[in-house]
């Protein structure tokens, strides 16, 4: 017989998996959504440095053609990666608005998160080392205040000094 906390945990797990599945699948096959998604992952190549679907500067020689190509590829049923490959082949790798997750480009994605993990580790180590520093010696006859007693003093001080 399953205990109640285990049941709750199992239900939560199912809900989580369901959410992930819905999250991952909803709208994935809709051509308009795909056009919007892929179009926002590419750059206009005219030199305006703007996302393809956001480029609308007057007289842009490239963005209209690129959008039409994208729409045509999606209408043909090309997969996302095939569309991206075709664009990269035609316009070069700078057409993608972000580095890919392949080869050296992968480092662009990894490094910030490695830095985050490293930073957290360093901060926690610093805090631990600071905590472990020896406290100044206390004069004879006095004992250090710790634990509950310290908390009581702290609360009293806060009450006395808080605005």
């Amino acid at each position, binding site marked *: 017989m399953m205990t109640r906390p285990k049941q709750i945990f199992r239900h939560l797990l199912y809900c989580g998996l369901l959410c992930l599945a819905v999250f991952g699948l909803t709208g994935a096959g809709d051509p308009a959504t795909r056009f919007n998604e892929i179009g926002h992952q590419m750059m206009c190549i005219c030199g305006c440095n703007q996302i393809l*679907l*956001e480029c609308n500067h007057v007289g842009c020689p490239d963005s209209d053609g690129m959008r039409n190509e994208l729409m045509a590829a999606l209408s043909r049923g090309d997969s996302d990666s095939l569309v991206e490959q075709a664009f990269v082949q035609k316009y070069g790798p700078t057409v993608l608005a972000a*580095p890919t997750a392949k080869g*050296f*480009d992968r480092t662009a994605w990894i490094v910030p998160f490695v830095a985050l993990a490293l*930073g957290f580790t360093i901060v926690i180590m610093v805090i631990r080392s*600071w905590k472990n520093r020896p406290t100044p010696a206390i004069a004879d006859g006095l004992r250090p205040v710790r634990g509950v007693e310290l908390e009581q003093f702290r609360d009293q001080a806060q009450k006395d000094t808080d605005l």
Partner: protein
Amino acid sequence: MAQIGSYALLLALALSIYSFGVGLVALFFQGDPLWERLGETARRAGVVVFGFVVLAAIALVVSAFRDDFTIAYIFHHSNRDLPAPYKFATLWSGQEGSLVFWSLLLAGYGFVLRLRYKTDPRLFAYASVVLAAVQIFFLSLVNFAANPFGLLEGPLRPDGSGLNPLLQYPEMVIHPPMLYLGYVGFTVPFAFALGALIMKYPGEKWIHITRRWTMVTWGFLTCGIFLGAHWAYAVLGWGGYWGWDPVENASLMPWLVGTAFLHSVMMQEKRGMLKVWNMWLVFATFWLAILGTFLTRSGIISSVHAFAQSSIGSWFAWFLAISLAVFVFFFFKNKDHLRSEHKLESLISRESSFLFNNLLFVLLCFTVLWGTWFPKISELVQGNKVTVGGPFYNRVAIPVALLLLILTAVGPLLAWRKTSFESLKRNFMWPSIGAVAVMVFLMITPTNWGSPFGLRPWQDVSYFYSLMAIGLCALVTLTIASEYYRGGKVIAGHTGQGMFASMVQLTHRNTRRYGGYIVHFGVVVVIIGFAGSAFNQDKEAEKGLAYGDKMTIGSYELVCRSYTQDDNPNYSSEWAIMDVYQNGKLIDTVTPQRLFYKASQQASTKPSIRSTFKEDLYLVYEGQNEKGQPIIKAHLNPLVMWIWLGVWIILGGTVLALIPNAPAPVRVPRARLVEQVAAGD
């Protein structure tokens, strides 16, 4: 005028060299009366530099107003029919002029600093020497590498090339000055920090002085960044306000590190900790401001902004290297002076929250720096450039920014040294319940209520981020409100005043703390505005609109009433007159335009923006079809107005934090009061 300007710049350089050289030697021979007097002349020379740089700037502006096209800079950045405010803005609209402007602001900051030297003559003397060194660099640039008074080669032209059309917008008259006041201003905290490091300054007084300068500078930079964002939104016509262009990133990096410093400096003031870290943060802020300038003016990184290709990059590279070397040298020489006075007692404490806050700010800065440099790194490693645009920053920076938002909620409620779990529970229970309630409410409301209601996080990752951002914003707001409420309640209990009056008094008694809370609240409002971008919509009437043609976006129906053309000496324009209907009712008439500037032969759009708290209706005149009918692109951008409102709140909080505290009422013991009354006092 060109000669007056050139000589003024040359004299300013000579005086800066004097101020630096003599000031430096005087610091070595402190106590010697002769060198004390010479040190005073160095300070005065620094003051006079300001006068000469002002003279040079005036000469350049007057040349623009007099249409003196013999000066190459005026020819390239002005024309006869340019409106007067833009002629004034010529001063900072090109490379050479902007460097004069930079020198002017630096000299202005130096002028104020040197006049206030009595606060602490020795520390100010060191800071003055550091400022003079930086001033020498910028004045050398405008004298030898990017002379704004250089004469135009070839025959005299009847008219100038004109100002870049994109810069002909009222905010461009104030955006660069604000941004530069921010960039240049970070030199002052750096000068104090380096001065304090060199002289092993005792105590934390330099931190008090530096903090106020940093707050002022930070306020200017914040204002400059958001003015730039608003300009991009209102002029560039792509419906967005931030494009992660290297020039934009260059302004964000010192802002992020400067913000980290403004937080961590409190640890040094209150607890004598993080002295080494603060020293590095001040230096990094200054260095990143210069690095950003180097990135955008050296041509190393491609940018759509001006100045991207020029020859002064190597000057900046050398300056960066020298300033780094000088700082590192003095840091290692005197780092023993920067020992922490206290230890950290608990992971759940204000100190820890500041450490993590600093980590996240610095990490965000690193991410922006990494993303900005990565195309170059990729080119060096694999031989081809890649683009690092919005999708990269959105994926990497948004999660970090959300963590930062959590700390914004948690940090101010943690006590210094240690916070008990009970206290944590007491302070956070209601704000957390409120935040969860807000998130649930946003998820269960119908989508037809409009943005940001009906947020279904499982439909799109951007909705998930928006929901998290708004939920955390609610948490921050509620914790700030609870802080105000608790403080107000205590004062109300003591004084018998009403709650609102008590809160006002509370704010006056500790302007820095409560000004900081207001800044946090402003940030919350800005982030709500950012969260709205997840619901952006756009639609294009690409075949053109004839009279009476309609297009629909969101709840708006747009009807083309007419389209026409206009002409003035500066530009010709085409525009559409569009009636805006909502629920069948006429609510506005808007006129998106396209302008063609005659002098520069360049076109520009002037979007029409109808702003409400709920959303912006943003119309762009993209051009004409073959029948001469306007092609209109409509964007619906939810919550954008919140961004601009939030910036005002941030600036208000910053100003409040700069106001000195009102003195706390003096409690006279009853017995003494009786004595005073008896004595007739």
